[in-house]
């Protein structure tokens, strides 16, 4: 059954409090599925938040930072605001709080940056790739997540998604047609 926006905030906060990576990933999966179906910005942002938080709580380099406790407390507080705004159907304030959460996590990532691509960009790419693998087009997945098509193609190319779904028209048949055109 689909989760409501307020329930999602509550579940993310609970998984964060318990440092439960498995639960956080399950929330992430559900949010991605919901994003594919409803194409809603708020659900997508919850997918992104749960993805990056699953990374934060699974990597000591984040939560052993000096200011980590402070930053994570702020995230929990913002998740409470998200829950409350969702209940009030105040979607503009919900969006603002979700963006503040991402900003707080981005700051944690910047404090100990290891890769050119930050944790948020990586999360966007991962979600876009999942949407594309699920059957949403490359352009729609790229549009929803704000990911560049090029990066998404490269990422998808490293996965097995094109082997998991067999296409009706074979490479042999396409070659036959193509030879005809270029004859």
């Amino acid at each position, binding site marked *: 059954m689909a989760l409501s926006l307020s329930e999602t905030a509550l579940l993310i906060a609970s998984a964060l409090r318990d440092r439960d990576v498995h639960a956080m990933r399950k929330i992430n999966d559900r949010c991605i*599925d919901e994003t*594919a*179906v*409803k*194409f809603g910005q708020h659900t997508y942002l919850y997918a992104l938040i749960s993805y990056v938080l699953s990374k934060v709580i699974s990597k000591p380099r984040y939560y052993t930072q000096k200011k980590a406790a402070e930053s994570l407390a702020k995230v929990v507080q913002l998740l409470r605001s998200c829950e409350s705004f969702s209940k009030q159907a105040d979607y503009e304030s919900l969006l603002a709080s979700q963006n503040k959460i991402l900003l707080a996590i981005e700051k944690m990532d910047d404090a100990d940056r290891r890769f050119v691509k930050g944790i948020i960009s990586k999360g966007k790419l991962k979600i876009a790739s999942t949407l*594309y*693998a*699920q*059957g*949403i*087009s*490359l*352009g*729609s997945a*790229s*549009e929803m997540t704000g990911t*560049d*098509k*090029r990066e*998404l*193609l*490269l990422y*998808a*190319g*490293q996965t097995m998604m*094109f*082997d998991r*779904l*067999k*296409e*009706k*028209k*074979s*490479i*042999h048949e*396409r*070659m036959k*047609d*193509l*030879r005809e*055109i*270029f004859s």
Partner: protein
Amino acid sequence: MICDASSLISLTDSCFIHALYFLKRRYKGNFIIPPSVEYECVQHPMHMKMHSIHAIRLKRAINEGVIEVVDADIGKKVQEIRWTANNLFYAQGTPLRLLQEGETEMLALSREIGVDNLLIDERTTRMLAEDPESLRQHLEEELRRPITVDEENLSSIARLTKGIRFFRSSELLLLAYEKGYFADYGKLKEDAIEASLYKLKYSGCAVGFGEISDYISRNVKE
């Protein structure tokens, strides 16, 4: 042949854009892109450190007439195809928003200028036109819920895409291989085309490992 952004990205990323030059020199046809693809593949990435070289390669191909930018009045057709495609499958009453404007523009341009050949590496658009039932089943499995079809829109999509032939960059490169594009490799040319197909795959061309190995073993390394 109308080219989609996805194919041009795969070809430039894997350094095979010259296969277009090679084929263009030997055949009469044109490689066409709409202005939106030029924006996506040239103007937009021109300022991205990681991708600007690909944009420059394509800009050069446009300047040299290998790729032609064709503008047409396709607004209405885009809307019609987009609406139909995005109201085709339903998950518990909610229509799935499958295609974006860029993808529908390719189909609309094809109809408007009467070009039936589309070069597109992106999988969903191709499946929607060629095999919507498999796409429905795939969505159902992936999203773990029943996906229903609007039969009227299914007929409309079939009508709107009737006669379109879809190709991937993998087939285009194979054709170039058959016409001698890899001749300089001498005895290594069979290995070179095989490796090149894998490179295209890793660059995002929607082709399976199985498809490549099957084709190579049956047609290249017999």
